[in-house]
């Protein structure tokens, strides 16, 4: 093996770091979409209409068995056929946003289910409005288990962004692959990408643990 530091610093890093920025952008933009779609799905799942609730439940189950890559390719091929022309970047954001909506819905539902039924009844007995019930009674209690769950989902989303390199979104592995195919050197670009991923996901996992602990001490409702 020969590892070339000059190559690493002069060629690899300057070309991969912009990819890192794309990775972060995709992660956050798609996650916003995930939260919105997840909320909609979760509400549909809890709907009083049994058809809507059943359909949402089956859709969630269906999406959970579907590889992200299939979703990405499907949108990538389908959208142009129906005359929607998006940059690969935005197709990627869309695909990841949709893909993670199902687990997000389940996490949110889990948080709501963790609030005892008596709390709803107590709010009702106190004659709280729907808004006050959610704002002052339900959400403060549901948020505890939801935040770490969604945080972990965010990390998972971050680790899934490399899949977008399959459709040439210029994030890290894609950049690494371009360098490799130009210079015939795989070691430095791929190792740098691996290390960057490791650092970022360890750091974000740590961050989530800190937030979780902060919430446990802040949140008087938690055990």
């Amino acid at each position, binding site marked *: 093996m020969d590892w070339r530091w000059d190559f690493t610093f002069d060629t690899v890093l300057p070309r991969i770091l912009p990819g890192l920025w794309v990775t972060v952008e995709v992660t956050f933009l798609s996650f916003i979409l995930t939260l919105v779609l997840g909320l909609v799905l979760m509400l549909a799942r809890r709907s009083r209409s049994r058809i809507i609730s059943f359909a949402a439940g089956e859709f969630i189950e269906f999406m959970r068995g579907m590889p*992200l*890559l299939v979703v990405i*390719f*499907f949108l990538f091929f*389908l959208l142009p056929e129906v005359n929607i022309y998006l940059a690969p970047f935005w197709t990627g954001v869309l695909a990841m946003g949709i893909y993670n909506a199902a687990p997000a819905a389940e996490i949110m539902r889990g948080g709501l289910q963790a609030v005892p039924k008596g709390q709803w009844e107590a709010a009702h007995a106190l004659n709280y409005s729907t808004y006050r019930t959610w704002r002052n009674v339900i959400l403060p209690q549901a948020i505890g288990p939801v935040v770490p769950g969604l945080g972990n989902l965010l990390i998972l989303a971050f680790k899934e962004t490399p899949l977008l390199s399959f459709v040439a979104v210029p994030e890290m592995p894609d950049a690494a692959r371009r360098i490799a195919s130009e210079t015939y050197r*795989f070691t430095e670009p791929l190792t740098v*990408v691996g290390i960057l991923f490791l650092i970022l996901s360890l750091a974000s996992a740590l961050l989530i643990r800190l937030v979780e602990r902060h919430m446990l001490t802040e949140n008087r409702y938690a055990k």
Partner: protein
Amino acid sequence: MQRSPIVVLVPIAFLVGLYFAVFSSVAEFLPALLNGLTVTIKVAVPSVLLAYLISVVAGLGRLAPIGPVRWASAIYIEVFRGVSLLVILFWLYFVLPEFGLTMSAYTAALLGISLNAGAYGAEIVRGAVQAVPKGQYEACTTLNYPVWHKYTRIILPQALVIAVPAMTNMTIELLKGTALVSAVTLVDLTAAGVRQNQMTYRTVEIFSVLALIYFCLAQVVRFSGVRIEQFFNRHLGAD
């Protein structure tokens, strides 16, 4: 999680698939997809077994009383959970040869997938072992159980039951992970679908069939998990 409608849906899905295969233009690309499916299964099945093995070894290693064993397990778990599966696959297939370790695409796929899933599984196993009530450990101590029997007869059988639902999810994630093996030149179900799409442009049909097949595979895993859980619960008299 009990999902009886799903169990009904699986045969229906197969019937729909059969209909497509026989009566429509799906017949054009279905053989290629089925070839891809065999690759997916050939990668998935051994990966699942290897991942389970790794999960137990690394999960227990994480709790071992010997420091270096514990640290090694922790490092393995953090690294292989922290890095994307795609990056791991690239690394095994393209970088390791630079270190003098060349492996076939199939081996790289199998290793990459099971090392990645095994790291998640190890955390599941660790959590499950820790979830066995403290009283069970204390009963073993007061009854003078040897360490080996304490784990094989008392702790692990109980941990196994606790781990089943999470392990089911891990297995489904692993299955989804096999869609990435085209990164190391294997033509699995997804890759076959993409190729066929580039030739025939029947995007909706091809991807419906892909989704249906993945859905069925996931349901098989989910259903087996539920059955295993039921089996254990019956044994524990919890029903």
